[in-house]
């Protein structure tokens, strides 16, 4: 009997391992200078072993099991999200963690998976018709509840991956693009207002969308009302944000304004990446990193260390590996034989994709500083385990793509 390799998605597997390898090496470099963080790479390696174990188990269990437990899991995760406010551990002004003995975990990560399962289960339905309110409204609420709870922690970075997932899954489940864009119009409304400072850009876009989607009168009125309300309440909402959230948004829009706080991090990150040049200053030789100019260099800003020490060559390699992960994730979605598996793959890939983009664009100064770690690279046990679980789920789909 010939040994046959399991039908894993090998490009996905190798890209993931490559990223984790680069991550370990960079954490080693980032914590190699004297200080409190020395030796973290060994801890991270331990987490990696644990994470691979998790991924293995997650991949071995048939995804139908997750389908079947999706609602109880979702309910549990919401309870955990509420519990965070009561028994959570506060760090840097945010309650995101729950301590269970020696272990700490973020309920928001579990909620992310559970929401993916529930949405996939919901959309995997014979009579699904997303043009109808009774079909598209429930997913919105399913997503909004965990989104609101996570945003309240506050963890805007993780929270915003929920709507990103929802949009991708709506799209994947067959919602017409015009309708989807019309539904997203309040977001465009906000973004365009901040970027241009004028409402007319949005008005033009909105009229164009209406002409394309040709919605029913009820929807038309609803969208008009919604966008009107957004325009009116935006300033009030702004005042409800935490000071540091406001500062981050302001800093993102105008980094020179406050180079001492969040702006300082972004400027130092840009200096680190830019000074790396084509081939970098050499592994372990980053001066920005070594002299502590680069803040959070082993967590949120680890990509800046890659850019400084390994240059354009290293940064592009990382981009390429992430590209493979995202591409394979969506590819698996499109070849999956099962509706739930397909939708789940899209949700998971989008969540990863979203975090990758938010972090990378942050380090090059093109996205606000949100405190989102870079999947597979940043130091942190929970994040690594969750990211590997996500890959395990994708491999789960790959292993069973020839089932019928």
């Amino acid at each position, binding site marked *: 009997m010939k040994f046959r390799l399991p039908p894993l998605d090998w490009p996905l597997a190798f890209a993931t391992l490559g990223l984790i390898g680069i991550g370990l090496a960079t954490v080693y470099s980032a914590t190699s200078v004297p200080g409190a963080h020395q030796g973290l790479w060994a801890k991270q390696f331990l987490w990696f072993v644990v994470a691979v174990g998790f991924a293995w188990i997650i991949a071995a269990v048939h995804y139908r099991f997750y389908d079947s437990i999706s609602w109880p899991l979702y309910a549990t995760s919401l309870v955990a999200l509420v519990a965070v406010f009561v028994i959570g551990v506060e760090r840097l002004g945010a309650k995101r963690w729950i301590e269970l003995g020696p272990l700490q975990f973020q309920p928001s990560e579990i909620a992310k998976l559970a929401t993916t399962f529930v949405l996939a289960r919901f959309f995997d339905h014979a009579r699904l018709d997303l043009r109808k309110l009774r079909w598209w409204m429930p997913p919105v609420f399913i997503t909004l509840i965990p989104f609101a709870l996570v945003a309240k922690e506050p963890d805007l970075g993780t929270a915003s991956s929920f709507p990103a997932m929802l949009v991708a899954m709506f799209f*994947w489940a067959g919602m017409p693009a015009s309708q989807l864009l019309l539904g997203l119009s309040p977001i465009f409304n906000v973004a365009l207002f901040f970027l241009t400072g004028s409402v007319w850009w949005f008005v033009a876009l909105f009229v164009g969308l209406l002409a394309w989607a040709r919605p029913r009168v009820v929807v038309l009125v609803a969208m008009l009302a919604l966008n009107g309300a957004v325009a009116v309440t935006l300033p009030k909402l702004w005042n409800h944000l935490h000071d540091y959230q406001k500062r981050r948004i302001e800093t993102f829009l105008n980094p020179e304004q406050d*180079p001492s706080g969040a702006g300082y991090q972004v*400027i130092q990150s840009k200096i680190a*990446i830019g000074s790396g040049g084509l081939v970098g200053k050499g592994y372990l030789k980053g001066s920005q990193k070594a002299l502590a100019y680069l803040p959070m260099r082993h967590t949120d800003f680890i990509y800046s260390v890659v850019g400084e020490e390994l240059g354009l060559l290293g940064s592009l390699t990382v981009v390429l590996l992430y590209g493979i992960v*995202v591409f394979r994730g969506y590819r698996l979605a499109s070849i999956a034989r099962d509706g739930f598996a397909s939708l789940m793959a899209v949700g998971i890939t989008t969540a990863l*994709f979203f975090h990758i983009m938010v972090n990378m664009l942050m380090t*090059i*100064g*093109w996205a606000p500083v949100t405190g989102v770690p870079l999947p597979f690279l940043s130091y942190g046990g929970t994040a690594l385990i969750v990211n590997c679980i996500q890959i395990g789920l994708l491999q789960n789909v790959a292993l069973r793509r020839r089932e019928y």
Partner: protein
Amino acid sequence: MPQGPPQRDKDTRFAILAALAVASFGLVVLGLLRLQVLEHDQLARLSDQNRVRLDVIRAPRGAIRDRAGRILADNQPSFDIVFRPAPIESTLRVRTAIAPDWLARVSGAIIGDTLEIRRKVQEANRTGQTAVLRRAAPYAVMAAVEESRSDLAGIDVQVAPIRRYPSGMLAAQLLGYAGEVNDRELEERADKGYGLGDLIGKTGVERRYEDVLRGEDGAEFVVVNAMGKRVTTLEEGPPKLPISGRDVTLTIDLDVQRALEIAMGKIERGAAVVLDPRDGSVLAMVSKPEFDPNEFSRGISFDRWKELNSNGAFPLLNRATQSAYPPGSTFKVVCMLAGLKLGQVDPDSHMPTSCSGAYYFGGRRFGCWEHGGHGSLNLVDALQHSCDVYFYQLGLRLGIDPIEQTARALGLGERTGIDLPAEARGLVPSSQYYNDHFHTGRWPKGVLLNLGIGQGELLTTPLQLATMTAIVANGGHAVRPHVVRQIEGQESAKLPRPVEPGVVASSAIWDAVHLAMHKVTIPGGTANASRTVPGMNVAGKTGTAQNPHGNDHALFVCFAPLEAPTIAMAIVAENSGHGSEWAAPVAGSLLRQVFLPDTGSVAAKAARVAPVPVDTTAD
């Protein structure tokens, strides 16, 4: 497959998602290209600026020594709390806007005045230079700063030499003090490379010899971390080593200076100068009250500064060179010399009117200090007893300009040119002066009478009086008083000789003047108290300067030994009374300490020969 969209639709949607992924990652690639290719040079430079800083290595100031090489001023290491502004073009330009909480933390840590710190930090940010926020910080402050370093961006501890004056208040006004350069000095000396926080001589020798004492600061490139803490020096680019300032050796003799300080112990305000009459070198100079220049090295607070300056006693003022007093009867020496030189009188000459306690001129009464009168005296005895009536008549006989010319030849009325800053000129009136102040030729003859006894418009500094005494002592040779004897690495520190030839007179004339001045110091003279060294003859003249603002100033000038003078001095005690009572004993105490050095420690000698008021009110 039971549910889900048809496969063809799925492929389209996959293509759209894949395109979105390509576009998103493409955006990241664009960002990377911009930073790592387009802006690489600029960002690499910023990265270097981030970590490399040019630190100044302070050059120690030259030491100031007395003529025997004993230290009067040198340096000691001090730990200064400094603020280093971020490189102008770099990332921390935030610091130009000073955050109130940062300011509060800094002022809390270094225990400093918030306004003062803000001013200095703003200045540092404007110029890009390091500012010293607290000089010579005590250990507790240093510890506090080190502890909260990460909260105090830009704050650093720097070791720099500060000035140390081991003898404290001794010769304080002569030595002067060095302090942090101020805005005006920075502007004036912009071309000499002064920077914020540099030390500069402010007064005295420290100021006059600033260019010699000041070294040349070195510099080195150091690698610093984000907190501004020095990590290591940069391998490439060796340091430029500092060049120490040059030492300056003074003519001051620490023993004589100490003796004079002790002798002046009871004088609250006043000054004394001791010269070597042979060459004009200053052996000792005291101005009372004194101050401790060490206070300025440590960085003086504004309040303390105001206290020193608003206090009526003005301790920072060097009264020996910067204050002018009427010379009083010490000026009679000038008149005697002028009379003898012009042949108007000889030592035995009597004046037509003998002294009956007063002299009447132009319908006015001019009194003699001896109300009972001196009778008829010859010139030598008139000086010995300081008879005013005699000198009124001598003044009348001489006229203004001969007196003025002799006074100037003796160094009065003009700056001596001593190597100390801001010397006062004093005033010796000429007929031109009176013509300018009254109508030409219409001024009253009475001014001549006053001139004869050293009152009226006359003003002289203690240094000028000492110089006059030195010239009289050495037989008329002009000398230029000076305080610096040698400058390290320089052949000669000699100041140009005075242009004035001094006073040309026969030895008979000098013998007569010296004899008269000697008789002042023997029993029967007005300054017996100055003759304290057995077997040594002293020549002197007391004076009492009328002070319209308060008690009279007591004066005394003298030189010794009479036969071969090595010491000439002048003493002024403000608001204390008669010269014979207050100033002459100071000279006596000094002479005893200097010429009888073997009779025990200086302090013991001081106790023995401290100036004791004698019960003569003679003048």
